[in-house]
């Protein structure tokens, strides 16, 4: 069974939490005790119908205010796939939570209220999904029951959104007319919209083809931990543990270690104690090498003929998370793969308007929830790829050394120009 991670974003009233509640309920993932609690709570609050949003809004403050504040993770499975939903708030004040949810997603689901059409918020969600290289986008046009299931309304939103999305990068874009409240086209086909011949949302989630999104071409192995048992049974064992970021590593492969530049051969690939033929992307493995070299955490194992960029001056798109604005005079801690360095943001090229895609080159700061293009200089070289090519070696976080807060994230574009 495959795993699909998807992120949802929506505003207070788009019905996102209701949709997730509906997916869980109709795929029989809601348990009786959970449903009873929600029914009881809906009654206590004087609602006319069972408010499925109460299933996902887990914090007291969220239930009180009727909004989603933070990313919540939800799980359901069908016979075809297991799903992890990162359910994120949609408001501009929570852009950082959306970015967080999208960072690990294979697919993004955007909800649009059919009555309101395409609004700034939906555009922002699409821009964020595109920036975070979520390649599959599903747009659910919700509350079709409130517009008499009118095909024209659906077509208009679809056409407007498609036009906007031409400027973004998605490998597939799907539109589905739904009513989350009643379940139309969520798990079963709607009787109310015979004009819609496409798939239901659940069918689409079960069948979206994401396997080809893995990078099998560029072998990258950030060394996470050096295993040295120093025991009688393993006096000389030295294994390099880590998670394959991209590409495939096999015994006998000639590899290069960075920063040293030494080359050697992979002796064995061990998947948590068992020798295997290949270490594939995303798997946690241990490599042993033929020669004993000086390799430690934060080093990168690659192929001599296929190396990542190596350097200290890097261009990136950056999303700012902190209440304290981006400062070009502060040295921050930077974490990239398993490598911890320090760095300074040399310049802010522009701030991106996430609704219009306008680039404001006069911007001097990024404040919380803003996104811009920056050049960063690090104290030590990083071994990196463009984020577009490899998420793991193309991403970093920025940490304030005084408060220890994670203040920003970066998606690498390439060497500074």
């Amino acid at each position, binding site marked *: 069974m495959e795993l699909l991670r998807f992120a949802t974003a929506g505003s207070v009233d788009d019905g996102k939490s209701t949709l997730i509640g509906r997916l869980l309920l109709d795929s029989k993932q809601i348990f009786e005790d959970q449903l009873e609690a929600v029914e009881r709570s809906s009654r206590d609050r004087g609602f006319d119908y069972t408010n499925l949003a109460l299933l996902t809004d887990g914090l007291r403050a969220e239930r009180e205010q009727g909004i989603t504040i933070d990313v919540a993770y939800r799980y359901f499975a069908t016979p075809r796939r297991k799903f992890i939903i990162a359910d994120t708030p949609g408001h501009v004040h929570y852009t950082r939570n959306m970015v967080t949810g999208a960072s690990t997603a294979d697919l993004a689901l955007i909800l649009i209220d059919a009555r309101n059409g395409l609004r700034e918020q939906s555009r922002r969600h699409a821009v964020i999904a595109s920036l975070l290289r979520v390649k599959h986008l599903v747009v659910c046009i919700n509350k079709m029951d409130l517009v008499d299931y009118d095909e024209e309304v659906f077509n208009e939103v679809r056409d407007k959104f498609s036009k906007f999305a031409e400027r973004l990068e998605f490998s597939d874009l799907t539109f589905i007319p739904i009513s989350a409240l009643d379940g139309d086209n969520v798990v079963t086909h709607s009787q109310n919209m015979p004009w819609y011949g496409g798939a239901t949302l659940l069918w689409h989630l079960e069948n979206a083809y994401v396997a080809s999104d893995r990078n099998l071409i560029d072998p990258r192995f950030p060394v996470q931990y050096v295993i040295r048992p120093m025991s009688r049974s393993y006096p000389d064992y030295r294994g390099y543990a880590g998670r394959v970021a991209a590409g495939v590593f096999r015994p006998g492969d000639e590899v290069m270690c960075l920063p040293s530049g030494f080359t050697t051969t992979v002796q064995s690939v061990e998947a948590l104690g068992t020798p295997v033929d290949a270490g594939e992307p995303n798997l946690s493995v241990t490599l042993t090498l033929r020669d004993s070299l000086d390799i430690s955490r934060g080093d990168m194992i690659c192929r001599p003929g296929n190396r990542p960029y190596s350097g200290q001056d890097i261009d990136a798109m950056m999303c700012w998370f902190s209440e304290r604005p981006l400062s070009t005079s502060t040295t921050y801690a930077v974490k990239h793969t398993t490598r911890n360095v320090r760095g300074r943001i040399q310049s802010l090229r522009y701030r991106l308007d996430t609704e219009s895609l306008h680039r404001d080159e006069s911007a001097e700061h990024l404040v919380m929830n803003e996104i811009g293009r920056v050049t960063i200089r690090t104290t030590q070289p990083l071994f990196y790829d463009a984020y577009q090519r490899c998420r793991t070696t193309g991403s970093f976080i920025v940490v304030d050394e005084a408060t*220890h807060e994670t203040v920003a994230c970066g998606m690498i574009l390439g060497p500074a120009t």
Partner: protein
Amino acid sequence: MTMTSNLAELEAEAVYVIREVAAEFERPVMLFSGGKDSLVMLHLAVKAFCPAKVPFPVMHVDTGHNFDEVIDFRDRTVERLGLQLIVASVQDSIDHGTAIEEIGPRASRNRLQTVTLLEAIATNRFGAVFGGGRRDEEKARAKERFFSIRDEFGQWDPKNQRPELWSLYNGRHRPGEHIRVFPISNWTELDIWQYIADENLEIPSIYYAHHRKVVHRDGMHLAVTRHLTLLPDEEPEEMLVRFRTVGDATCTGAVESCAMTVQKVIEEVAASRVTERGATRADDRFSEAAMEDRKKEGYF
């Protein structure tokens, strides 16, 4: 048996998190109660560092009200793996006067565990504490990060959590603060059981159906043990039961079951219409926000 890609990915993610903590923290510790989630987590740690030993100790917060089968399993496991076990005892906290025993027949030491846990973290100066919490267990847990910072009082501030992107975890903290780490955040109850089956893991016998004397209280079947005080009208009855979760014996209910093998348990869990906590935990029944409130105080 080959592992499904779903479990292989969850395993790789958990191992990555465990190795990350071992690499970046000076004094990590892994909580180990002998329960199914903590033993899966411990098994992942063993695999993460193979063929070396697990490079940190394990700790059990012992309420003194445990099932004997589970304590026996805990001790055998620790011995087999050559681990260092730290037992933080709620009874000690009560004896020192830092925790006050609840009174009455419904008294439980569940809540007192938090006091003992925080004392043990402070005494041992642990910077990172691994817990086997899963996001599918409960709605407050659904909001938890893999790396969750706790202040000097052990408090969780759900509205002010660090953004957590990709697999770049930020474990920085001030002296006195610590990080709770949840490597199996993304596992569900069914994933745990399928992994136990795939890896052929031994688990405490009380997870399988067995005959046991129980009493019916608050909609649950509570095991009659030396830790449980019977109410005047309660009549113990022998039933065929198993435990879906294993916590303090005074507040963990059994479920009727005839599942005596791991495959039968998987079938039962897959068909279940009630969550594991809803079925078996008195501690989550106080209110809609019972878990959130306890977590804010420093509970796992």
